[in-house]
C-alpha cells in the first residue's frame, strides 16, 4: 500500500509536471479540479479508491490532450472524515484556489456540509457515491446509483426467489433510515411483510442480540444496510452463529468489498444490485481494470465509488466540451437537452435533466460460498426516475432540498 502510494504520488507529480508544461505550450491556464476525499481516519478504505480513480482519469485525460485543449490540475485535500474540515476545505478550494469544479465527499453528511457552500457559488459539484437519493439541487450532479435503481430491482427479485418476509438491519442514520423507508414502500407494493427492523448506531461492533432477534422473527431473507467497518462485523458474527439466511443489500460487495475482506463463507448468499463491481466481465470493463491495476498494483478491489469518481471526470469533460464552456449555466444547458452522456466501462450512462442524477446499467450479483461473484440478472439501463416523478424539475426550479418518500416537495 505504502509503496503504491509513493508511486501514486510520484505519478501524480509527473502528471502535474506535464500539466504545467502542457499549459505553457497551449498558453491556456489549466482547469482546476478540486477533490475532497478522506484518505485518513475511519473512511480511508473507501476514500483511497476514490482518490485513485480521480488520479487515473486526470492522467488519461491529460495524456489525450486535456479538456478543450486545457490540461487538468488536480488539487486534492484530505478532510479526514471530519465534516467541519469539509466545510473549511470546500471554502478553501472554491474561494482561494478558485477551482472550476468540485468533486468528492463520502458520507451524506459530508455532502450536506458542502452543499450550502457550493450553492453560494457558480461552481458545479459532482457527488460520486451511491447514496439514499433525493437531492434536488442545480449545483450538484450525482454520479452514483440511487434507491430506485438499486432497491426496485433487488427487492422484487429477493421476494420472488426467497419469500415475502424480510428483516432489516440498518445503520441508524439518514442513509439507513431512508433506505429502510424505501424497503417498506416497495415491500408494501409487493404484498410482502417486514417482520423486523433494527437500527444500529454507527460504531457498534457486537451483534449477539441482533442475531437472536433475527432468529426469533424467522424472516425469509435479510436486508443488510449496515454501514462502516465496525458494523461489518455483523457478517462474521452471524456466520459464526450459523445464522445462514439469504441477504440482500445496496452497499455490500461492490462498495465495501466485504467478500474480499472477510474469510469465506461469511458473505455467502449475499445479493446486491450494482452499476459497477470489479467482477464485471465485458471488454470495456476489462480494459478499464487493466489500466487501473497497472497504475495502482496494490489495489485490493476497484469499488463502485472509485469507479464513479473516475467517471465523474469524464462526465465533466463531456459537459465542458459540449457546452464549450466551464460555466455551470452553460453546462446545465447541455444537461437540459438530455444529451449529457459518456461511454463508461459499465456501458452508456447519461445525466437525467430533471434531477441531474445519472442513469446506470444495473446488474444483480450474488456471492457464493467461496465468495465467488456471479451475475444473476442484467436489468439494462435504469433511469433515476423518482425525483422527476415527485416533482423535482431542475430545468424549471432549483429546490436545493433533499426529499425522501416521507418528505415530498410541497405542491405549490
Amino acid at each position, binding site marked *: *500500500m505504502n509503496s503504491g502510494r509513493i508511486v501514486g504520488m510520484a505519478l501524480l507529480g509527473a502528471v502535474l509536471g506535464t500539466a504545467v508544461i502542457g499549459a505553457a505550450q497551449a498558453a491556456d491556464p489549466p482547469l482546476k479540479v478540486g477533490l475532497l476525499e478522506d484518505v485518513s481516519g475511519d473512511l480511508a*478504505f473507501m476514500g483511497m479508491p476514490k482518490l485513485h480513480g480521480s488520479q487515473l482519469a486526470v492522467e488519461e485525460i491529460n495524456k489525450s490532450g486535456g479538456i478543450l485543449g486545457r490540461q487538468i490540475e488536480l488539487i486534492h485535500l484530505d478532510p479526514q472524515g471530519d465534516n467541519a474540515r469539509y466545510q473549511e476545505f470546500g471554502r478553501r478550494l472554491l474561494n482561494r484556489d478558485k477551482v472550476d469544479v468540485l468533486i468528492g465527499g463520502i458520507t451524506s453528511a459530508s455532502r450536506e456540509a458542502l452543499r450550502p457552500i457550493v450553492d453560494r457559488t457558480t461552481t458545479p459539484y459532482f457527488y460520486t457515491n451511491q447514496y439514499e437519493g433525493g437531492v434536488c439541487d442545480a449545483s450538484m450532479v450525482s454520479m452514483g446509483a440511487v434507491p430506485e435503481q438499486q432497491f426496485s430491482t433487488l427487492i422484487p427479485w429477493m421476494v420472488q426467489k426467497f419469500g415475502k418476509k424480510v428483516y432489516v438491519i440498518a445503520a441508524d442514520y439518514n442513509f439507513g433510515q431512508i433506505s429502510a423507508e424505501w424497503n417498506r414502500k416497495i415491500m408494501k407494493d409487493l404484498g410482502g411483510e417486514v417482520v423486523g427492523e433494527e437500527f444500529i448506531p454507527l460504531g457498534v*461492533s*457486537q451483534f449477539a*442480540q441482533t442475531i437472536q432477534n433475527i432468529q426469533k422473527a424467522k424472516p425469509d431473507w435479510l436486508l443488510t444496510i449496515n454501514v462502516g467497518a465496525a458494523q461489518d462485523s455483523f457478517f*462474521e458474527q452471524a456466520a*459464526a*452463529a*450459523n445464522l445462514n439466511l439469504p441477504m440482500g443489500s445496496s452497499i455490500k460487495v461492490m462498495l465495501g468489498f466485504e467478500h474480499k475482506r472477510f474469510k469465506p463463507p461469511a458473505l455467502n448468499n449475499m445479493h446486491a444490485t450494482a452499476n459497477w463491481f470489479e467482477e464485471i466481465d465485458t471488454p470495456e470493463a476489462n480494459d478499464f481494470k487493466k489500466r487501473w491495476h497497472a497504475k495502482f498494483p496494490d489495489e485490493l478491489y476497484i469499488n463502485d465509488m472509485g469507479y464513479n469518481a473516475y467517471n465523474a471526470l469524464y462526465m465533466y469533460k463531456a459537459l465542458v466540451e459540449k457546452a464549450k464552456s466551464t460555466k455551470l449555466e452553460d453546462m446545465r444547458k447541455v444537461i437540459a437537452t438530455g444529451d449529457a452522456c459518456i461511454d463508461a466501462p459499465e456501458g452508456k450512462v447519461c445525466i437525467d435533466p430533471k434531477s441531474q442524477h445519472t442513469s446506470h446499467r444495473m446488474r444483480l450479483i450474488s456471492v457464493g460460498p467461496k465468495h465467488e461473484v456471479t451475475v444473476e440478472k442484467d436489468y439494462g439501463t435504469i433511469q433515476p426516475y423518482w425525483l422527476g416523478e415527485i416533482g423535482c424539475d431542475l430545468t424549471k426550479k432549483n429546490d436545493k432540498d433533499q426529499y425522501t418518500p416521507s418528505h415530498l416537495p410541497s405542491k405549490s
Partner: protein
Amino acid sequence: MSAELFSLFYQFADVFAFLILSAAGLAIVFGMMGVINMAHGEFIMCGAYVTVGLVNLGVPLPIAQILATLTAGIIGMIVEYLIVRRFYKRPLDSLLATWGLSLIVTQSMLLIVGSAVRGIGTPEGSFAIGGYTFSTYRLVLFGCAVAVLAGLYIIFMKTRFGVIARATMQNAAMAKALGARTGRIYSISFGIGTALAGLCGALYAPTMTLIPTMGATFVVESFVTVVIGGANVLLGTAPAAVFLAMIRMALNAGYGQIIGQIGMLFAVILIIRVLPEGLSSVLVRRGR
C-alpha cells in the same frame, strides 16, 4: 422456555465479556496507576493486528493470540519507559501524551499496513438450542473474561509482586523507603495492563473487521466501566461490568441498540451521582 433462558444468559455473558476484556487492562493502567491512557484502544488494535498477521503466516490461532498478548505487553513496557514514566506526577498530561501517541499509531498503521486487512474467520463453530443457534466462540470469550478476573485477583492479591504493587500505587515514597523497586513495579504493571488490552484485541480479532481505528469502539465502554467501578479496581470492575451488562442487555433486547447505548450512559451518570466514589466504595464498606 429453557432456550429463552439460555439465550438471556448468552446475551448477558456476551456483553459482560466485552466489558471485562476491554476494561481489564485499563483497570490497572488507569484505575490503579492513574494514567489516563488514551492509547488503550491502540493496544487493543495492536493485539488484533498481530493475531491476524500471525494467523495469516500459518501460526495456529491460540498461539497467535498468546504471542499477540505478549507483544502488546512488551510494547507497553517500552512505551512506559519512553513516555508514560514522565507523567506519574501529572496524570492529566498523560492524556495529551497518549492521545498524541494514539494519533501517530493509528495513522502509521494505515500508511504501513493499509486500510483493509483480510479477516481470519471465527473458530469453534456453533450449536443450537431450541430455535436458536449460538456461536461457541462467544462462550470462549466469556470463559476468558472470567479467567482474566481470576488471574488479576491472584496476581494482585496473592503474590508478593501484587502486595508490593498495591503498596507502590498507594504510597510510592513509602514503598520505596521499604525497599521496593518502584520503577520496575510501575513498568511491569503497565506492561500487564497493555498485555490485557492486547489480549482483548487478540480475542476479538476473529469476530471483527480490522481497521486501524478499531480500538475506538472499545474505549468509551472501558473507561466507563473502570470509573464506575471506583477506587478499588479489583473489587469494583467486575460488579460494574455485571451491572452495566444487565442494563445494556435488557435495553438492547427490549428497545434496540440505540436505547441500550443511551440507557447505559444514563445509568453511568446516575450511578456516579448516587455513589460519587464508585461502586467499590459501597462494597468495601459492606465488607468491613
